[in-house]
């Protein structure tokens, strides 16, 4: 049986992969190397607080080069020297990941997120996080952290460890991993109103 912290980390990776794929057409290759932070060049953190139904927060730490690359993917080359746009992109990325994660964790309960915040380096309480994962995006490092005992409780209801891909690693955004809470229907953008929670593929509801 997979530990709640690992289930939460898996869910966080799923949300990160889904967001990166749909926002900037990038894959998040999970590597789970706890030493990846020390190799990051000029890391910057982005964090969103969760207030309901349980307190917590979700953070993403991105090195500057990757942040610039993601902003360029979104806005085009004119964002290369626009730090304000790059930071805005990081905040919006984190906001979207947090929302996607919470929609999976709490299914049909309302939830509330705060406005994203950011700063250089690592968040101060990063050592106290409940779940952590590291990824490579375009060969550059990205970390994602989640805090909140309540998030762990919700994560414990998630399906157990997802099947690995043929290559032996995690498949970014693997829809078969998530049977307990749906993404919004990609055609209509709406969530199923109830009934059977399926995977990420569109339903007829």
């Amino acid at each position: 049986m997979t530990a709640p912290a690992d289930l939460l980390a898996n869910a966080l990776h799923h949300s990160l992969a889904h967001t990166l794929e749909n926002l900037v057409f990038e894959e998040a290759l999970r590597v789970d190397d706890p030493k990846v932070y020390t190799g990051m060049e000029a890391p910057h953190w982005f964090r969103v607080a969760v207030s309901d139904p349980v307190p917590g927060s979700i953070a993403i730490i991105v090195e500057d080069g990757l942040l610039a690359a993601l902003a360029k993917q979104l806005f085009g080359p004119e964002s290369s020297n626009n730090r304000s746009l790059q930071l805005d992109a990081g905040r919006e990325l984190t906001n979207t990941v947090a929302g996607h994660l919470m929609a999976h964790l709490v299914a049909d309960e309302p939830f509330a997120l705060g406005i994203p915040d950011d700063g250089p380096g690592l968040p101060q309480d990063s050592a106290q996080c409940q779940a952590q994962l590291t990824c490579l995006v375009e060969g550059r490092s990205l970390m994602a952290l989640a805090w909140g005992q309540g998030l762990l409780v919700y994560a414990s209801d998630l399906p157990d460890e997802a099947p690995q891909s043929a290559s032996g690693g995690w498949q970014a955004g693997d829809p078969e991993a998530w049977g307990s809470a749906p993404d919004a229907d990609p055609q209509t953008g709406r969530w199923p109103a109830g009934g059977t929670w399926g995977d990420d593929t569109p339903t007829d509801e």
Partner: protein
Amino acid sequence: MPRVLIADDSATARFFCRRCLQAAGLIEAEFLEAADGAQALEILRAQRPDLLITDLMMPVMDGVELLRRIQASPKLHGLPVIVVSSAGNAARERELRLLGAGAVLGKPVSPAALAAALVELLPGTGGAA
């Protein structure tokens, strides 16, 4: 030419939404932007767009209060509204539709989802995605 107001405190979100709307077929449209609900309300009162697309979590005035003000206004009542939010799920959607949202979409929004909403809320526009 339809006039669309996009309200979101994130420049990234506003840009992405505009790009998705254009991909959804709303190529000839005038796009207005607001960084918070209060700014959006000012623009709505001054220019009465054909469609509002709004986030929920915004400073100064959030999306829920913005929806309440629109619903309470004789001039703005009935304005087509699409909520695009990271804080949405089926439970929240019910609440937002009662407040006047015509569609509630999750982030990151897709051209297909916007096209489907446009067919309902702005017939004759979009739907090309």
